[in-house]
Each structure stands twice: as structure tokens, then as C-alpha cells.
């Protein structure tokens, strides 16, 4: 019990000590990696600055909107596709073929047409998050016990009720795990649109800090990106566990 609490803390402290001593002693050039203390100072400065919070707001807004839009399209569509054999055959193969295509593919075109605004960010996030969500939902819907479905039918539940009250709950665990992955990749794609497309947000701050060779700030911003990633993973992990429990 003590081990489980002490060792992780020891690991973090050790990494921090290693970072500080390696950069202080000159083992790693200060032009390559800043010291931990200067990074922490830069992080403190960031947390007290308005542009930082505006950038966080920009990134989080596009991430959330992109994710919600993807879910709003993919989950109902996935339900419909999964519930119909014809629709399944008609759509599955093209969508399966699209899935391994990296979302970055449409970046040049989207940048051209949408000029790097929030619509551009949401389009790209959707390209990254929508297809996996759609496929997973339709798999989840198909992965249902035939007996349950036949029971619902013999109770004369209509098509709509069968989909909403029988198929959807059965698919929820898979949908929840797909949502967790989609949330993570949506965040990565949001960062890409800011790093490459120049859209406002955390990634743009990173580019500006790197351009000004402000190393402590670059490291502090990267730290923030990592912490946000952890937060997203924890939140969606908790959601996934809840869904698994209620089943």
C-alpha cells in the first residue's frame, strides 16, 4: 500500500532531480534543454497571463465542439448502419477504407477553403474522430445477442424502440471506449491544426515561443499539453468504467 504511493512519487521526484542536475551541470546544453526551475517559473508566468487562458479556451472549445459534432453524427449513423444489413454492406467498406487515412491528408485543402478558423479546426478534428466512432458504434450495435433482439421483437417493440432501448444500451460499452480514443485523437488533431495551420490556441503559442527561442516557455507549454491529455484520458476512462458497471 505504501509502496504504491511512495514509489510513483519517488519516480517523479527522481526524474525532476535528473532534469535539474543534467541541465545545471552543463551535461545537456542550456540552448537545448532549459532547467526545470526556469520551466516552472515560465509555467507560473503563463498561468498568470491572459493570452494563455485565451489560447487554452480556443483549444478546448475546438476540441469539445469537434468531438461533440463527431459523436452527434457518428453515433446515430452508426446505430442505423449497424441495425440494417443493407446499410452495413453499403457503407462499411468505404468507411473502413477511409479509416486508416490520416486526418492530416485534408489539411492543405481545408486550410485553402476555410482559412484556418474554428470551422477548419472542427472539420479536421471530425475527419480524425468521426470514422473510428462510426465504425465502432456500428460494430457494437451488431454485436448483440440474437435472443435479446428476438425477445424485443416478440414483445412487438417497433424499429425505433428496438434501436433506442435495446441496441443502443448493448452498444454503449464499445461506444464509450471508442469515445475515449476519439477524445485523445481529437486533442492531437486540434494541436496539429494550430501548429501547422496557424489556428489560434495552445499549438500556436508553442510555435511562437519556439520561434522566439524561449525554451522555458516551450517546455512549460508542452507540459500543459501533456497535463490536458492526462485530464482527458482520466475523464473518459472514468466514463468508460461507469458505463461498464451499469451494464
Amino acid at each position, binding site marked *: 500500500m505504501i509502496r504504491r504511493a511512495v514509489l510513483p512519487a519517488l519516480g517523479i521526484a527522481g526524474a525532476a532531480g535528473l532534469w535539474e542536475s543534467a541541465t545545471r551541470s552543463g551535461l545537456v546544453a542550456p540552448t537545448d534543454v532549459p532547467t526545470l526551475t526556469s520551466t516552472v517559473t515560465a509555467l507560473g508566468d503563463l498561468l498568470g497571463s491572459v493570452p494563455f487562458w485565451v489560447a487554452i479556451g480556443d483549444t478546448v472549445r475546438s476540441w469539445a465542439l469537434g468531438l461533440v459534432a463527431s459523436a452527434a453524427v457518428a453515433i446515430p449513423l452508426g446505430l442505423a448502419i449497424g441495425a440494417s444489413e443493407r446499410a452495413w454492406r453499403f457503407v462499411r467498406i468505404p468507411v473502413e477504407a477511409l479509416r486508416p487515412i*490520416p486526418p492530416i491528408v485534408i489539411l492543405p485543402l481545408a486550410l485553402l477553403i476555410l482559412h484556418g478558423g474554428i470551422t477548419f479546426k472542427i472539420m479536421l478534428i471530425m475527419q480524425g474522430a468521426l470514422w473510428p466512432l462510426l465504425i465502432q458504434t456500428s460494430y457494437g450495435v451488431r454485436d448483440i445477442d440474437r435472443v435479446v433482439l428476438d425477445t424485443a421483437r416478440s414483445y412487438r417493440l417497433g424499429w425505433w424502440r428496438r434501436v433506442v432501448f435495446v441496441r443502443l444500451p448493448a452498444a454503449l460499452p464499445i461506444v464509450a471506449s471508442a469515445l475515449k480514443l476519439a477524445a485523445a485523437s481529437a486533442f492531437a488533431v486540434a494541436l496539429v491544426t494550430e501548429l501547422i495551420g496557424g489556428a489560434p490556441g495552445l499549438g500556436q503559442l508553442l510555435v511562437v515561443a519556439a520561434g522566439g527561442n524561449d525554451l522555458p516557455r516551450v517546455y512549460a507549454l508542452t507540459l500543459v499539453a501533456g497535463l490536458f491529455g492526462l485530464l482527458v484520458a482520466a475523464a473518459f476512462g472514468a466514463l468508460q468504467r461507469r458505463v461498464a458497471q451499469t451494464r
Partner: protein
Amino acid sequence: MSRLTGLLWQAILPAALIAGYQFWAVRAHNPYFPPLGAIAREFRATWLGPGFTEHVLPSLWNLVRGYLIGLLAGVAGGVLLGRVRVLRDLLGPLVGFFLTLPAVALLPIFVIALGIGATMQVGVIVFSVFFVVLVNTTAGMRAVDAALIDVGRAYRIGPLRRLFLLLLPAAAPYIVAAARTALSIAVLVMVVSEMVGAPYGIGAVTLLAQQEFQYARMWAGMVLLALLGYSLNAAFALVERFTVGRWGMVATTGEGRS
């Protein structure tokens, strides 16, 4: 539904989309959306001529190097973390942090430390692959049946043979699932790493074409990237079927990242 009509049914949507695009693009004369013929010509001129050795091969070589190094290092690290509990507890939070940190966010740091070039690109790809494989290999090692290890011990199998004949095969479904996720991430990271100012590579040429109003070339780049993502995934599925599939190991869905 017979097999043939099933196949036809599946082909309708993609065929209709492509035909619809061509029908519209020929008439619309929109410079952003060139007809298929123009894209095909530009594809040949940009990627199949000298551009193949200048841009396509270096991109692929970076991808292959970064992917394989990250994969091997990830499996090695995962074996270590899976077997040694103290290490697992000690490094747990750090591994968790780097797993959820999108690899693309590290591009500025890599550019500062290594400059723009192949070393930086391979470095980011290695990083993006390493942590996915590390975490899933660790999980795979921990999922190995304790009875299997006891049997190995009873037969006095040495540590090396135990690793290669018992532990790694038992963890293979986890490792394969992670390797697949990591491949699509590596492709994304390769392209993005080329878009931050690299002088060569598929991503660099594609973004530059957009900035220089060479829209047919931009489309040729998009088509190549799409084909690359698709065929790498298909190749992986093929390898999977003839190796772990044939050995009776079914892949699980792994812990992902991006």
C-alpha cells in the same frame, strides 16, 4: 445476397463519389478542385519521376526507421516493466504522462534540440511509437497466465527461452494491437514532422504546393498520403493474418493514443 451482388453493393458508394466528383470538377472549373486527369498527370510528374527518390523514399525511410526502432525499444521496455514491479511503480506516472501527451506537441522541442532534418523526424516517430508499444507490452506481460510461468519453471526452461517461447508469444496479441495503432500514428507524425519546414518529403511538397497555388500537385500529395495510409494498414492486416493469425493468437484492442 450472393457474393457478387454483395461486392457490387459495396462498390457503389465509392464509385459514385469518384464519378460525381469528376462530373462536377470538369464543369465547375474551380481551381481548388481539379479534374481527375490533371491530378493523375501531376501525380506521375511529382511522385513517380525524380521526385520518387527525392521525396517519397526519404519519407518512407524515416517512417520505417522510426517505426522499427520505436517498436523494438517499446517491446524491450515493456518486457522490463512487465516483469519488474518496482520499475513499473516507479515509472508509472511518467509513462502515463508521455502516453497521453500527443507526439505532435513535442515537435517544437525536437526541432530546438535536433534542428530540422531526418534525425528530428525519426526521433518524433520513435517517440510516438515507443510509448504505445511500451504500455501495451507491459499490459500483455502482466496478462500472462501465472500457471504458464510455473509450468516453464517446472520444466527448468532458462530465462531467455522463457522470454521468447513463453512470455512474448503469450503477450503477442497485445503487442500486435499496439503495433497496428502505432503504425497509423507514425504515418500522421511523419507527415506533420515534414510540414514544419522540412525541405523535402511528401508532407513538405504537399503543403508547399498549397502555398504556391499548385492545386493539382496538392491533390496529388493528398492522394499519395491517403494511398499510403490505406496500403500500410492493409499490409499490416496481411502480415497479421499470416503470422499471429496462423499461430492462433487473436489480436485484442489495445490502449490507444494519438
